[in-house]
């Protein structure tokens, strides 16, 4: 690649300043603040703090509540990532073979993407409403009394459902683009080599979609871990009680409801490390196992 040269060596850094300052203000500073805070026990009323070393981490990791939340977060993330990827892929494969009205169809599928997470949560509340929610009614038809916010697993179900629904469009867009970048002759060659459409999908289409799929997997894991906060908050109406929560929500609860700033800082640092590991894993390990053309 040709390298552009600037006559004054400092000029390019000057161009980077706006971007870097935004990252610094909104990420590095808070992150450093969190790391610092995680080593202190903060007085809830702001009358100073005490250095406690790794006690906050120790308390967080050994608490049974934390482990339960972690376990639920794992299940929640796996379910959300799996279903939003699988359903989006199914929709993309179907949309890919639509010839007439393809644009309308695609636009309709992508619409949901424009909905903000809290709004998605509100729609979820409407769907699961005790008296008028259609999903509650549907469950009622099968003789099951669905109670959002009361039964642990009912809430979990609603959380997964709304999160998956919200995430499908972006996965769909990427999968569709991935499908359309598979050269047509390759698919046609496969049609001549293999009469079974399903087998063709798993032996040709799916491996060629692997780069897209892998990228989306990482995106979806981070989505389920972090970005579902807004949806959950609305579904619980801010009062989770004994409903299932994710680790991120626990950070918020402990810090801002429980006023345990040190403990919640420690928890967020743990999450930060988790994301770091995930990213390293993405770039170092799995990219090599994926077939790029």
């Amino acid at each position, binding site marked *: 690649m040709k390298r552009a040269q600037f006559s004054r060596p400092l000029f390019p850094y000057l161009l980077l300043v706006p971007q870097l300052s935004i990252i610094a203000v909104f990420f590095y500073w808070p992150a450093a603040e969190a790391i610092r805070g995680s080593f202190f026990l903060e007085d809830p009323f702001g009358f100073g703090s005490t250095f406690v070393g790794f006690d906050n981490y120790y308390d967080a990791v050994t608490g049974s509540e934390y482990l339960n939340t972690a376990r639920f977060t794992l299940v929640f993330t796996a379910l959300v990532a799996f279903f939003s990827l699988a359903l989006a892929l199914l929709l993309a494969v179907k949309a890919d073979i639509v*010839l*007439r009205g393809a644009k309308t169809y695609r636009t309709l599928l992508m619409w949901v993407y424009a909905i903000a997470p809290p709004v998605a949560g509100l729609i979820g509340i409407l769907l699961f409403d005790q008296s008028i929610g259609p999903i509650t009614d549907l469950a009622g038809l099968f003789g099951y009394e669905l109670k959002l916010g009361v039964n642990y697993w009912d809430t979990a179900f609603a959380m997964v459902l709304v999160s998956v629904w919200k995430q499908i469009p972006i996965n769909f867009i990427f999968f569709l683009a991935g499908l359309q970048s598979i*050269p047509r*002759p*390759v698919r*046609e*060659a*496969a*049609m*001549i*080599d*293999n*009469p*079974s459409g399903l*087998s063709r999908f798993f*032996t*040709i289409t799916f*491996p*060629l979609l*692997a780069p897209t799929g892998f990228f989306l997997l990482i995106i979806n894991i981070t989505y389920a871990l972090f970005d579902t906060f807004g949806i959950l908050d609305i579904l619980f109406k801010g009062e989770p009680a004994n409903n299932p929560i994710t680790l991120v929500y626990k950070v918020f609860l402990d810090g801002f409801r429980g006023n345990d700033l040190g403990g919640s800082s420690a928890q967020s640092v743990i999450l930060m490390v988790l994301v770091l590991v995930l990213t390293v894993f993405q770039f170092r390990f799995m990219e090599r196992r994926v*077939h790029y*053309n």
Partner: protein
Amino acid sequence: MAQVNIQSVNKVYANGFAAVKDVEVQIRDGEFVVLVGPSGCGKSTLLRMIAGLEDISSGEVAIGDRVVNDIDPAKRDIAMVFQNYALYPHMTVFDNMAYGLKNKGMKKGEIHTRITEAARMLQLDDHLTRKPRQLSGGQRQRVAMGRAIVREPKVFLFDEPLSNLDAKLRAHMRSELKELHRRLNATFVFVTHDQVEAMSLADRIVILNAGRIEQVGTPMELYHQPASLFVAEFIGSPAMNTVPLGTRLGGMLANTAGTLPAPAMTIGLRPEAILAGPAGGPGIKGHVAMAEALGAETVLHIEVPQGGTDTRLTTRVSGETRFTEGDELAITVDPSRVCWFDHEGRRIATEPATQPAPRKEPLPAE
């Protein structure tokens, strides 16, 4: 091995565009047929209809004795080589070739034998464990052919397989293809827009124009007895000189060519039907506007100043010619090699004075 029968086949797209109109061809068993024509003439569409990648709007395609209109591409007993090779990028060369065979439920040993044999024939032995991206264009092309060969299909279909290769490699692959055809003795249907490729490969050429067949015939028939002006101008390089008789040059040429069939509107002369003689000799006066020396022969572009509106003619002379740009000369016409075309551009049948050389080997029996 099988013949391919194409009967009044039409292709009309959803938007009403008719890509293939009423095409009728019988391709014989073991024949090498080339479909040729300018881009957009429907040749690829026709091939894809034989392959089953494109629906047949009306008409019938039969491979062997079986009408295949509604048969899945994988079950038509055909193999296709694509222009961009269409190899599976995530599979090794071996797996690329084995894929179709595995899906037929063939035994591992048999697959192995077939691939080893094909790889040897195509000199791919050393590359079987490589991925397509590690191969050169020519090697990829060979893998694509290998993938077709191991299937041992009744019909091989080629969709412009050589057009992505550079000129030298293309000439080489052309002779390899010809050799392959002789060795496999299978039916080949080959699509190209390149008339040189068509002429050098085909037993018979099907020349298409705007979805219709213009002419079906051996390369020599097409060259010497083109059915229409379109064929005359498409086949042969440099192209045939076609001059309307209404122009002054047309009249002059017709006078030298002898008997004029009644409805003729255009005279057609292959470059070699125009003979260049020294200035002052009998014939039409002109001068050399440009001389293209190609080595063995030289193509002369002759300007005839008295010709009226249409004044350019091309002729080919021996490479040792003394004529250079600017030289005066006199041209005459070989009367036995003249083609006449009527007002619709169709050739008027005259005594076939130019008998195409008889084929050394007779065409395979139907």
